[in-house]
C-alpha cells in the first residue's frame, strides 16, 4: 500500500513503498536496458534522481503511483501494454519519470557527449562563412521572388 500523497511532506519518495519502487526499477530496466555502451535505467535511477524528478514535477506523482499499483502483474511488458491501453495518463507519467531521471544523470549525459545547454560567445563582427562562400550572392543573383501586387506576377529586378 502506498502512502497518502497528501501527507507526504517534502519528500515525494515517501509515497513509494518498496514494492512500488521495485516495480519501477523493473519497468525502467525493461524500457532502457544496458546496451550499446549505455547503462540500464534500473541501475542509473537511484533515490536522488527519482527525488529530483518528482520534486520538480510533483504533478507526475499521482499518475506514477497509479502506474505502479499492484494487480497489474509481474511482467513489465504486459503492465506497460495494459497501461498504454487503459490508463494513458499513468503510462505517460511512468515513461516521463524514467526518461527525465535517466537523462538528467551526469554519467549518462557524459556518455552521450551532451554537456547541457551551454552559453557560447558570439563573434558577430566576423564575416560569416556563408558570405565568404558567396551563398547569399547566388540567392541575390537569381533575382527577386516576391509577387508584385501591381502585376500579380513575380517582381522584375529593379
Amino acid at each position, binding site marked *: 500500500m502506498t502512502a497518502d500523497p497528501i501527507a507526504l511532506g517534502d519528500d515525494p519518495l515517501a509515497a513509494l513503498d518498496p514494492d512500488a519502487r521495485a516495480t519501477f526499477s523493473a519497468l525502467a530496466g525493461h524500457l532502457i536496458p544496458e546496451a550499446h555502451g549505455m547503462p540500464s535505467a534500473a541501475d542509473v535511477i537511484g533515490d536522488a534522481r527519482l527525488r529530483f524528478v518528482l520534486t520538480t514535477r510533483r504533478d507526475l506523482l499521482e499518475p506514477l503511483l497509479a502506474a505502479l499499483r499492484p494487480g497489474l502483474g509481474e511482467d513489465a511488458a504486459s503492465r506497460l501494454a495494459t497501461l498504454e491501453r487503459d490508463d494513458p495518463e499513468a503510462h505517460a507519467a511512468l515513461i516521463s519519470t524514467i*526518461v527525465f531521471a535517466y537523462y538528467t544523470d551526469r554519467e549518462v549525459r557524459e556518455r552521450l557527449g551532451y554537456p*547541457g545547454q551551454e*552559453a557560447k560567445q*558570439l563573434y558577430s563582427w566576423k564575416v560569416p562563412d556563408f558570405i565568404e562562400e558567396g551563398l547569399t550572392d*547566388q*540567392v541575390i543573383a537569381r533575382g527577386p521572388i516576391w*509577387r508584385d*501586387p501591381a502585376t500579380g506576377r*513575380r517582381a522584375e529586378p529593379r
Partner: protein
Amino acid sequence: MAAEPVDVLIVGAGASGGVVALRLAEAGFKVTCLEQGDWHDRAEYRGPELDWELTMRKQWSTSPNVRGLPQDYPLDETDAEISPLMYSAVGGSMLIFAGAWPRMLPSDFRVRSLDGIADDWPLTFEELRPYYERTDRQFGVSGMGGDPAYPPGGEDPPLPPLPLGKGGLKVARAHTKLGWHWWPEFNSILSAPYDGRRACVQRGTCQQGCNEGAKASTDLTHWPKAIGLGAKLITGARVRKIETNDSGLATGATWIDREGNEQFTQAKVVVLAANAIGSTRLLLLSADDRHPDGLANSSGLVGKRLMMHPFANVGGLFDEDLESWQGQFGCSIESFEFYETDESRGFVRGAKWGLAPTFGPINAALPSRAGTQIWGPDHHLHVKAHLGRGANWGLFGEDLPDEANQVTLSKTLTDSDGIPAPEVHYKVSDNSRRLLDFHIEKASQSLLEAGAYTVEVDRLMRYSGWHLLGTARMGDDPATSVLDRWNRTHDVPNLYVVDGSCFVTSAGVNPTSSIVALALRAADHMVETRFEQQVPV
C-alpha cells in the same frame, strides 16, 4: 471624489500593449495598463538548469491548459484541432516565443485581388514598412538586408545576422545547389550588445524565457522606458468588462485585483492588447443591454475568422554531430521559395520555412510528436541518432479566414476568478492540408539534398497555436469588419484593439513583427488625431 480618468487604459502588457504604451507615454499621454500576469525575473528561466526539459513540459509549457497557473485563463479547446498557446505576464507571450521576426510580404495584403479568395487589407506593405523599421530598432533585430523575397529599399535591421549553425550552413548550401531561395532569418534576438541588453549565447532555450535578455520582449524593451515616462503598469489585474456609457463610448474597465476585489479604472480611451483570444473574450464579456452580442460587434464578426497557422515539422537526421541542441530558437535560416501562390499545386497561398534547433536528450528519448517511441536495447541507438544530429524545418502555412473558426464564451468553464473562459472552435481547412502536404514534400527534398539520411515528419502539430490572429479584423466597411484601418472599433470610437485580432488574412509568416508594426502605426495615429478623439464627458 472620483479619480481623474487616465488618457489611455491598455489591457495587456505583452507585445502590442508595450509598444502602444511607450509611444503614447513619449507623446505625453497619461497611460495605465492592466496585466493579469506578473513580472518575471530572468533568473527564473530554466534554460541553463538540469530541469529545463522537465519544466518546459509543465511549468513553462506554452499551453495555459498544461501550465494551469492562476494568472492563466483556461481554454475549452474540445472543438479545436490546434491548441492555442500564450503566456500571461509583463512581456506576454514574447517570453515564450521563438523570436523569429519575418515581415509579411506585399502579396499578403492583397489576397482577394491576387487569388480571388479571403480579403484585401486596408493598407499595403509599403505603408507598413516604416513601422517595421522603427519596431526593428526598438526590439533590436538581427538579420541581413537584401533578401530578394522582399521588395528592395528601406533600412537594414540594426544588427548583423545570428549564426547559421552547422545545420543551417548545410541546408543553405543545399538550396544553392537546388537553386532555391534561402536567407538568414530575421530574429528579435541580439547578435551583439544593444540598448543595454546582452547578446545571445546560443543556448537554444528561447521558448522557455531568455536568461540573457537577448531575446526581445516588452518587459525588457518597452515597459521600463514607458514607466520611466510616467506610464503606470498594474499587474495581477484581470479585466472582466469594458464599460460604456449612453453615448456609446467606452468609459473604462472593471477588473479584479489579486485579493479578489473588484476595481474600476476610468479612461478616456481603452486599448485592448490581450491577444486575439483574450481581447475577443473581453469584447464578448462586455455584452449588455445596449450590446447584446458583445461590444463592437455590430458586424457579428467579433471572435470569428480565428487563424492559427497550421504547422508541420520536417526533421532531417544526419550522420555527423551538428550540436543541433544549440542555437537561436528563433531560426537560423528561412526559405520563401514556395511562398507565393501557384495554382498548379492544387492550393492557394504558401508557407514560410524556418530552420530551428532540436532540443536536448529528453526530447530525443521521449515519444516523438509523430508518436514514434523506441524502447529496449535500440532505445540508445535512437537517442544517439537524434541528439544533436538533426535539422528541423518548421513550416507555417497561410491559414485562410473562415467564420466557423471562432472564439466564443464557455457556459461551463471559468478562470480562477469565475469569469467565463474562451471556447475555441477551429478546424484545419482542406487548402491548409494540401498546402502542408506539398511543403512537407519540398522540405524533405531540401533536407535530403543537404545530406540527411532520413526525414521524419510531424504533419500537423496539435500544440502549435502560437499565432493567434483575425478575430476582430480591420477593414473600411463596418458591415464586414470590426476595426477600421487604424485599429479603432467601428462601433465604439474610443475603443481600439491593437493585437493580432486585427489581421485580415494570416500571411504565412510568424506574425509578431507585423503585430507590433501595426500597433505602432495605430499609436502614431492616436497621437496625430488626439484632438479629434471622441472621449466620454
